[in-house]
């Protein structure tokens, strides 16, 4: 039994994490697809990787940045939006709205669950990268900050989408946005390979800024201040939008 707000938030986070880990489609999005992309980008040269012409460990480091970004976007946006939309449709969120759990505690639980699943996926991909020959540079820990900021930037948009439209529409839009962002948001295809002015524009998207922040940490071992500010701006904007449009049912 729980009576404190923090205790209820943790309980909800544990519950949401369990639901995510038992859902095959969610696992495909948050673990299997990122792992597949790491293998394709890190081991083959099917797609260009923005590693400044470097090879070996740097190529895998750059691919790891991309994969971590994919993980954040898939778990913090696509999976979250779809799961939230179907919970709305089933009435599960309406029911929770009649329990002692507050809206803030519910959203906090979802954020923590997303962070947990992202962390699990990042650990799996990082271990895979190490097995493929990646050797982290000093300062690679900044990637954790970039990851946290990335989750914070994407989660409000996932909740805004999942909390406002019909479940079927959310399913289509969330997957569509995921694919478009992957291809043209500076993730799988590097911003430098996109035609102008897209290459400049994507740096200001939460996807491009996230990849920049992760690449800076993993390749150079230093934080990318501009990218972090951009992510914080998307977090603020997303939170404002989500609080206005999110509905329990």
């Amino acid at each position, binding site marked *: 039994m729980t*009576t404190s707000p923090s205790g209820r938030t943790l309980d909800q986070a544990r519950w949401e994490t*369990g*639901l995510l880990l038992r859902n095959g489609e969610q696992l495909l999005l948050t673990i299997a697809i990122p792992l597949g992309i790491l293998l394709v980008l890190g081991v083959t040269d099917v797609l260009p990787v923005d590693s400044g012409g470097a090879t070996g460990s740097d190529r895998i480091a750059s691919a790891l940045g991309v994969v971590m970004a994919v993980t954040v976007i898939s778990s913090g946006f696509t999976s979250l939006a779809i799961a939230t939309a179907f919970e709305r449709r*089933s009435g*599960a969120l309406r029911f929770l709205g009649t*329990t002692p759990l507050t809206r*803030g505690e519910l959203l906090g639980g979802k954020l923590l669950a997303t962070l947990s699943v992202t962390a699990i996926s990042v650990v799996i991909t990082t271990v895979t990268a190490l097995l493929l020959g990646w050797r982290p540079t000093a300062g690679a820990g900044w990637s954790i900050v970039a990851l946290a900021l990335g989750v914070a930037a994407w989660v409000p948009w996932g909740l805004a989408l999942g909390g406002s439209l019909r479940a079927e529409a959310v399913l289509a839009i969330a997957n569509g946005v995921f694919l478009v962002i992957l291809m043209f948001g500076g993730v799988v295809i590097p911003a430098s390979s996109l035609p102008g002015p897209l290459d400049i524009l994507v740096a200001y998207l939460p996807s491009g800024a996230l990849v920049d922040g992760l690449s800076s940490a993993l390749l150079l071992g230093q934080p990318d201040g501009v990218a972090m500010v951009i992510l914080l701006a998307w977090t603020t904007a997303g939170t404002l939008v989500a609080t206005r449009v999110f509905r329990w049912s």
Partner: protein
Amino acid sequence: MASLTVHDLVVRYGARRAVDGLSFEAPEGAVTALIGPNGAGKTSTVEACVGLRRPTSGTIEVLGTKVPGPDRAMSQLHAHVGVMLQDGGLYATARPLAMLTHVARLYPAPRDPAELLMAMGIDPDTRTPLRRMSGGEQRRVAAAAALVGRPRLVFLDEPTTGLDAVARRTFHDLIRRYVDEGLSVVLTTHLMDDVERLADTVVVVAAGRAIRVGTVADLTGDEDSVRFTAPMHLDTSDLTAALPPGSTVEEAPPGRYHVTGNLDPLALSTVTAWCGQHGVATKDIHLGKASLEDVVVDLVGDM
């Protein structure tokens, strides 16, 4: 003392008034049933009382707390209130015990989820996810979810819809036991069996207003009557004349006739003879006390 007080409640959807000045009280430790036709405003009222829908006007007080209120105040109130929604409310991919255990953890002094599921006739060890359970089984889990927090007041919105007769009786017995222990219940239902077996007070709602409040006995009365259905607007003056002095014949709503007053054993044969003489084809003729369903149909049909 009232566990719930609703005063002059109005809930609007655009131009339509789903609830239109509804007032009633639900006493503590008793079952208050809201009954009435579809669209009468019962579910909108429940949703407003539990904070899911903002009233247009009027006041609601639940266990001494004004609703709606700030998030923190609503959270504290919800620790003592259970809700069974009219439909849904369950995590489709979860198993019953897992979901109930999670819900229980949100409350300060919950009931044992496994025991509650067993009491509702659901195997707590089942590995079947909720989405694969029958509609009736899902309703029983939803009822258990409303009760697992050991509420002082529970709102049950059409709780027995889809339940078989045995499950309905089991549910009635469980609710009655909790009420005997002090639970207050606000029940909405279309099943008069629920009302007759559970309700201490009945509020008949139509067009968003309370049109009659009382016990089942108050509503049905203890006076015998002959009731029958026949073509509308018959001239019944000679039937009245044929009946014992003091008897009356009323048509309300159109097509439903009530013969009341000093009914002797020959009253029924007098009515059937009158029908035969006038070529009136009757349906549903019976002598006795009006059922609750008769009363509701008459009340709502009069509006």
